[in-house]
């Protein structure tokens, strides 16, 4: 069987070999078993459902949390001529939506946002066709343990029971044992579900922990890091900080810097991603909105200028570095005052039982809530779960986040091998790490400048800042 699969892979996709885990999952699916695949980002998760498409009779339904992820995947399937594709999301007009739903039997793939899938009209349309495979992409969103928890994912288990797909495939890049259990449990998958779980260990990432004791330490070290001249992503805690730090850095370097956060327009975010991918932008300062769906393979340096929310976010964010397999450096600034500030922010953002109840009773009353709190509540309101359950979930989530944050703080204050700790925390069967000079270091062991001198990071030719062009020059570049 595996060699037949490899032949098919070569013929249909032009790859010589499967990535780790792909063959195992495909074998299970083709034998009629449900599966959960935990594979690192960029390891070809979407190949799994593309591959099985011609082997299955009926529709492949892919639930995906982000519009950009959906349109990107849909476009890839279209250009590779793997099958006809439709995308259902909240941006469609009712007429457009009805059109797709009426012609559903003509499509091989349907991409849908979890919120859209709750609509009875959508479910009825899917029930009228044969459902071959139910794919839950970014399945970790189902778990309140996961970094991207989305209330709308909680209803997918129910939906799955109603739609009765022949097969189910859950895909994710980040799953601790707890998240994994949540995926299986919430999707109500049978005990004999096949699974493959890659270790979180990425040997080409160097883990660096940089202890900060003075206010200007951060800036001095940051300067040394950006002087490396490699493609760099800097994570900060707030939108305001992203903008302020980017503006500060622009004065300190000739490389082009941009800030990125959820408040920017879609076109602007798109353009920043594109310029960054094409190495026209050297440094991006971002909040955790820079995430799912962005894949820059030659990212050499990820800096946590501020603390990430917890262990899970940290793992996900450093995981964006070095996807081309070459050495990449990840640096986290550890500052006790940041930890305290973060605690305060979390406290300020916490919703009380009364606020939650008020919101559900009078959704138009903004109370004293900020936009992100209202966003959270609106997401829950859409799921139509009872208030008591929402309150319970929110309380449970905030307790979980607090535990995760404590565990992370412990990690940041330990002196043992960081990689070993990472594996111990995340892996089901943690490997034993052989720590060496390419593994990890902390500021107490080795100065940053010494480290930067010995690490052979591959440089990328970065473009200078482009000036404003004349109309004629732009049009020539566009159309000649």
């Amino acid at each position, binding site marked *: 069987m595996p060699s037949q699969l490899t032949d098919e892979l070569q013929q249909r996709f032009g790859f010589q070999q499967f990535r780790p885990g792909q063959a195992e999952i495909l074998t299970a699916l083709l034998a009629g078993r449900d599966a959960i695949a935990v594979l690192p980002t960029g390891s070809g998760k979407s190949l799994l459902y593309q591959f099985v498409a011609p082997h299955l009779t009926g529709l492949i339904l892919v639930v995906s949390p982000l519009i950009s992820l959906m349109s990107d995947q849909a*476009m890839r399937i279209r250009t590779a001529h793997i099958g006809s594709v439709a995308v259902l999301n909240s941006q469609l007009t009712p007429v457009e939506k009805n059109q797709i739903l009426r012609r559903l039997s003509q499509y091989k793939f349907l991409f849908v946002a979890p919120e859209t899938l709750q609509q009875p009209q959508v479910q009825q349309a899917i029930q009228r066709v044969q459902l071959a495979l139910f794919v839950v992409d970014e399945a970790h969103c189902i778990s309140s343990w996961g970094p991207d928890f989305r209330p709308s994912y909680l209803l997918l288990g129910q939906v799955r029971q109603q739609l009765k797909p022949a097969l189910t495939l859950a895909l994710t890049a980040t799953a601790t044992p707890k998240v994994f259990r949540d995926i299986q449990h919430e999707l109500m998958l049978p005990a004999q579900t096949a699974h493959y779980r890659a270790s979180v260990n990425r040997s080409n990432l160097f883990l660096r922990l940089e202890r900060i004791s003075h206010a200007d330490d951060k800036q001095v070290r940051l300067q040394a890091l950006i002087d490396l001249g490699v493609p760099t992503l800097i994570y900060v805690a707030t939108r305001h900080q992203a903008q302020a730090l980017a503006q500060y850095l622009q004065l300190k370097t000739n490389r082009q810097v941009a800030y990125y956060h959820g408040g920017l327009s879609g076109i602007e975010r798109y353009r920043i991603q594109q310029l960054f991918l094409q190495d026209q932008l050297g440094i991006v300062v971002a909040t955790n909105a820079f995430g799912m769906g962005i894949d820059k393979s030659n990212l050499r340096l990820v800096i946590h200028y501020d603390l990430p929310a917890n262990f899970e976010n940290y793992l996900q964010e450093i995981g964006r570095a070095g996807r081309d397999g070459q050495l990449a450096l990840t640096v986290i600034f550890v500052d006790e005052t940041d930890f305290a500030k973060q605690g305060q922010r979390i406290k300020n953002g916490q919703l009380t039982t009364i606020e939650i109840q008020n919101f559900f009773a009078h959704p138009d009353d903004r109370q004293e809530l900020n936009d992100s709190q209202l966003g959270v509540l609106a997401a829950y309101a859409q799921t139509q779960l009872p208030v008591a359950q929402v309150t319970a979930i929110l309380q449970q989530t905030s307790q979980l986040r607090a535990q995760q944050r404590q565990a992370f703080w412990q990690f940041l204050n330990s002196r043992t091998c960081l990689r070993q700790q990472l594996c111990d925390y995340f892996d089901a069967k943690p490997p034993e790490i052989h720590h060496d000079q390419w593994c990890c270091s902390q500021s107490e062991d080795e100065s940053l400048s010494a480290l930067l001198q010995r690490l052979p990071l591959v440089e990328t030719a970065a473009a200078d800042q482009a000036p404003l062009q004349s109309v004629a020059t732009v049009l020539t570049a566009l159309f000649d």
Partner: protein
Amino acid sequence: MAAELLLATFAATPRRYKAIFYGLLGKDTVSNLLALREYGLLSYFHLYPKLSQSKFQAQLVKLQQAGWLQIDQTAATATLTTAGAQFLQAQQLTDYWPHAYDYWQFGDWQLQWQRLLLGVQVVSNRWHQVQQYQPLTESFQVQQELHAWWRYWSQQDWSQFKIELQTILSQLPESAGILLANSFSSNSFPGLTSQHLAQIQQQSTTVLQLAQINSLGLLLQQLQQTPQQWPMLTSLLPLPKSPLPRSAAQTYQQLLSGQTWLQIVQQRRIKENTLKEHLLMAAILIPTFPFQNPTIQQLCHQDPAGFFAGRIAQLQGGAFNA
């Protein structure tokens, strides 16, 4: 939006700040539209469809603290202070607003902006035979429109598009042409982020965006004046046929066709008050509104002291014309 810029929406007489908020957001109730018309802000309707109320209010408080705005909580109004009026004048804040863009003539600027950028991206990538790329906008509506536009012109010589674009950009004021050109992007021309553009122009990104909207408005004005000169651009950036929403446009058509109130009501099966609101919207938004129409006169005579008659009288008298 920056708080200072918001100052330009206020005056030395009290204005209802909620009407300004809902106007910028794009809520088309009659009372909002009347207020916007009175304040001379009607064209800025729907300029900030994502404006958050808490941010808007925080900005008002900021302006109050700076001593530029006086807020009356009970009346829910705000008034420019003398210092505020001076600051507004000295900084020429009103100039930053996109005077050339009129929502009622050109429609949602975000849609027009996305159509223009996506159109340029698609044609440019096609020109360079780039097959696989991510469209600049995620909007399914705009993508569908682009497909239709592409199919319609598929037999044409695409160099015509370049010529139209080049000609129209060179006819705009130089700064507007350059700003639009540098906002484009495709695989052969990555373009500049708004942040970078703003930095080069030494502006905030907010001011830059208003300048982009204004430049877009200037371009649309050209299209509106001589549509036959720009066939490709005109079909890429369609202008709304009527400023009225569909249902209101229908009511207005019935009025124009000479129907009596009874006929209108019987045909539509909508609440009478809603139908009256439709007519009021038309009276606000359509310069050629026939105030002397018998049906309008009849409605005013039925209840001379009512809301409808009162608004019609105000609108007709031009009492609110700023």
